[in-house]
């Protein structure tokens, strides 16, 4: 595959990167051009990602569409990319969501009409910047998913913080409950918190990355970051890590991913970041960027440090359970729509991490599907919430009520997004959540039961939110005047909902791709699924 064929994976990442540059270069007065350009680029990326999916042969090699070029020989780094089923699915998710994010944020970044004079307006190009940054994030996320070299992954894992940081800090909701100035302050607090949290995690990972190099350089002919090479060397016994070394390195990696994911108690940046950013950016954070964290746990923590992963599993499972319950309980207690969704996401990331560390095929396939489906469902819920918030200019739940009376379509789509969030059967997230739970239960029954309690809590926070915002009498004039979803907004939400339903009913195309990759991962950690108590029960059809 790798010989001289078209570098499809790289192209999928390079296209949005180039698009970002082009979008940023659009003159200030041509804002609309920038928007359409960005949308077109994102759709083009979607096509390429679709091509990746199509070119990926589920029954073939573990990593496909591989590319390998010399890069920084001194650091033992090659530019190596390639996709397994998990990466292919997540790349597809990323490419899928970006056009919706762009379309949803169509009016989110306009220059102030009361800007500081013509001179300032001429150079300040928030619209171009907004869409360029989104495309830049997309490019980096795609490379992160595709990287099969630890260093390449690390580079983009860290670098994507910067455009994200500008997206969070630079583009908040126009109206803020606490006033304009206070809003700007909280926004920059959120952005800084996001960056520092993740940077700190990333720097700790840097220490571990260097440690990994030292270990490989010590025992192999040359230091390397190549996943495959390290895995092969470990399998052949050529590379042996001392127990403590492996554990320390694992912790370094895991901490960075746990911040990104985020896992309790490293989660507090997420509510701030999601609360203060605009809805499309919030979606970008939780549905796309954070997935890199959980993905990396699956690929790097488990793939590089199988023994340490097994060693850490009990603690990670407990933390994941705490995340599930804690996130859900805090979501119940939130007064702010976006923060509520953020805490709900923390709970969901708990599920994903639980599934990964359950070390069963159901758990890990479930976790992978969960990443995809949670992306779609959160996008649906959060984007509709964004539309709602843009109408009323408030994020506070208490400022709403009775919306379904005046905007039934908005309320309906919001409800479906909410139902997907609470994993209603028939919608996609149910499949993944159930797989995670069943996978967890089959190895750790007690953990499975505690996590199952999460589904009750999910119902509480989703329905409480729906009840408080959408139902009841219309007693606020702002609500009474509220328009229903506009065609653009409907065009954003409807396909997401259709996908949620379709994948809920027929997730097989995705499971077919993901399953072999999960089997490879499980063989990395030398785990097999627990056998059923009663062997050889024939499935009679």
């Amino acid at each position, binding site marked *: 595959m790798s010989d001289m064929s078209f570098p499809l994976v790289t192209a999928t990442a390079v296209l949005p990167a180039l698009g970002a540059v082009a979008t940023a270069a659009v003159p200030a007065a041509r804002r609309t051009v920038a928007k359409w350009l960005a949308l077109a680029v994102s759709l083009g990326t979607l096509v390429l990602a679709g091509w990746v999916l199509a070119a990926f042969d589920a029954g073939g090699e573990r990593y496909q569409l591989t590319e390998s070029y*010399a*890069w*920084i*020989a*001194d*650091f033992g780094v090659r530019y190596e990319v390639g996709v397994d089923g998990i990466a292919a699915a997540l790349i597809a998710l990323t490419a899928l969501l970006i056009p919706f994010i762009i379309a949803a944020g169509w009016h989110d970044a306009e220059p102030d009409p009361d800007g*500081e004079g013509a001179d*300032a307006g001429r*150079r*300040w*190009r928030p619209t171009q*910047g907004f869409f360029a940054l989104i495309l830049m994030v997309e490019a980096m996320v795609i490379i992160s998913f595709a990287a099969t070299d630890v260093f390449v992954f*690390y*580079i*983009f894992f*860290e*670098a994507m*913080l*910067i455009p994200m*940081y*500008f997206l969070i*800090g*630079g583009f908040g909701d126009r109206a803020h409950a606490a006033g304009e*100035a206070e809003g*700007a302050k909280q*926004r*920059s607090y959120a*952005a*800084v918190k996001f*960056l*520092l949290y993740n*940077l*700190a995690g990333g*720097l*700790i990972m*840097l*220490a571990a990355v*260097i*440690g990994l*190099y*030292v270990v490989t*350089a010590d025992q192999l002919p040359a230091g390397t970051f190549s996943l495959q090479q390290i895995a092969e060397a470990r399998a052949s016994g050529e590379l042996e890590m001392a127990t403590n070394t492996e554990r320390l390195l694992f912790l370094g990696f895991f901490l960075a991913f746990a911040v990104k994911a985020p896992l309790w108690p490293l989660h507090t940046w997420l509510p701030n970041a999601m609360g203060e950013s605009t809805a499309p950016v919030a979606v970008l954070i939780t549905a796309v960027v954070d997935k890199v964290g959980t993905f990396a746990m699956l690929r790097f923590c488990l793939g590089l440090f199988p023994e340490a992963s097994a060693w850490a599993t009990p603690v990670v499972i407990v933390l994941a359970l705490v995340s599930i319950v804690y996130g859900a309980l805090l979501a119940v207690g939130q007064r702010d729509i976006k923060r509520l969704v953020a805490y709900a996401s923390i709970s969901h990331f708990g599920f994903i991490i639980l599934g990964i560390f359950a070390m069963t095929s159901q758990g890990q396939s479930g976790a992978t599907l969960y990443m995809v489906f949670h992306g779609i469902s959160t996008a649906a819920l959060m984007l509709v919430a964004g539309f709602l918030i843009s109408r009323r200019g408030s994020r506070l739940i208490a400022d709403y009520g009775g919306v379904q009376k005046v905007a039934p379509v908005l309320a309906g789509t919001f409800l479906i997004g909410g139902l997907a969030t609470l994993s209603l059967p028939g919608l996609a997230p149910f499949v993944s959540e159930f797989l995670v739970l069943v996978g967890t239960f089959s190895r750790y029954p007690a953990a499975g039961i505690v996590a199952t309690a999460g589904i009750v809590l999910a119902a509480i926070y989703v329905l409480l939110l729906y009840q408080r915002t959408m139902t009841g009498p219309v007693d606020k004039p702002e609500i009474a005047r509220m328009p229903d979803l506009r065609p653009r907004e409907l065009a954003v939400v409807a396909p997401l909902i259709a996908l949620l339903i379709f994948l809920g009913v027929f997730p097989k195309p995705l499971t077919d791709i993901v399953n072999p990759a999960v089997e490879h991962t499980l063989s990395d950690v030398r785990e097999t699924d627990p056998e059923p108590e009663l062997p050889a029960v024939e499935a009679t059809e």
Partner: protein
Amino acid sequence: MSATTLSGAAAAEPVHSLWTVAAEAPSIEYAQLSPTLIVLGAAVVGILVEAFAPRRARYGVQVALASLGFAGAFAAVLALAMGGYATDKAAVAGVGAVAVDGPALFLQGVILLVALVAVFTFAERRLEPRAGGGPVDSFAAQPAAVPGGEGEKAAVKAGWTTTEIFPLLLFAVGGMLLFPAANDLLTLFIALEVFSLPLYLLCALARRRRLLSQEAAVKYFLLGAFSSAFLIFGIALLYGYAGTVSYAGIAEVVEGTVPSPGPALAASMSSDALLLVGGAMVVMGLLFKVGAVPFHMWTPDVYQGAPTPVTGFMAAATKVAAFGALLRLLYVVLPGLRWDWEPVLWGVAIVSMLLGAVVAITQTDVKRLLAYSSIAHAGFILAGVVATSPEGVSSVLFYLLAYSFVTLGAFSVVTLVRDAGGEATHLSKWAGLGRRSPLVAAVFAVFLLAFAGIPLTSGFAGKFAVFKAAAEGGAGALVVVGVIASAIAAFFYVRVIVLMFFSEPSPEGPTVAIPSAFTTVAIGVGVAVTLVLGVAPQYFLDLAGQAGVFVR
């Protein structure tokens, strides 16, 4: 390869001696010394220009002379490197006084490039308002005049400028070129003084805020001289211990490989106290120049007070030269004492990283902030120094290359942000800069991110190289501290970015001056190097890697 084998007459002598060599006409390898000679020659010509050329013509001639001098010297460095003097033909020249080897040529190349760019920032004349009918630069019209006095007013009115800065720059660079190449302690000391004295003067020459500028110069001078005193006393003690000032000679004594030590030498060799105390004092003199804790205290004040182009040059080039000298001293002279100085430098590195990062958090002046940042970076580089391996050397070389251009670029940007009182260095004035001048703010953000070590910038590649070398050298704990310090440091870099992009601009905020091509080129080179070294550092890593071995 030893110095003695090259200079034939000295070969017979058991101990290398300046005196004995001087008895015969020494052979000087002019070609190998040409970079330094070209720069110093240009400096001398510059003095003559000051003396004889008409005032109006001086600026143009000096700029051209300095640029050509640096470019020519750089070409000479290139030629030497191509000629293999960085690798297999590496040797000592100038009667054992100067080493021409990989690290020396690499660092000389870096210093010359930095200097070339610095000439551009020195020559910038579009930022200050015109005076006396002509454009002026950011140096004092008449340094001798009392600030605010009649003489100054007259000088300003007349549109005078201080074109002496260019010869001063040339002299300083000449000293810096010699510094990392110095192969005996005498040359080391002379080179130190040759580049320090012009810098003291340059610090005092700001056009605006002259009181601060003068204060900076006084502090820099007094503390610099104080540290020189320590250095020379240390040199004296080392000489007392080894009976020679040649690096190779001292190394031999330290290792105990002298064939037949005389009675005096045998007596002094019996006790290591002289060696240890002398070595420590010499190292301290060098640590002062790199601005490592606890010898860092001059840095913030001098960085803040000096004219910004000078600060940029000084911050970049001094660090390169001083680290080069430190490397050579530790790797060539004192490798036998490795177990003595390694823990000490560990301590200095850790304290530098942490203190620089922590104190920078609460800084309110952008130049002081960058000063503290440079202290933290000194700590990072020291982590590579203590790796005590060829990888360590080359990682430090690479880091210096990366760091110097980021620094130069960052200070060049600082020169652009101005209000009625000159440069607006207080951070509060930078609020909302991203709104007014997105491009300038973005460029500065790139530099800040490089300082913070964000991937895809040169700062990351450098940090990675240094930490990797340190970890391979068994300094894993140092890497962990470095990582923590990086996290703390990230906080204040980010703070500036927040200020620029997410704060509302104040109505009476500064404006961003449109610079001439000089500064634009300087900043452009900075950005380009930052990104190229971040994205495709392999070529430069190779270069640094080949340059990782010292001649002896």
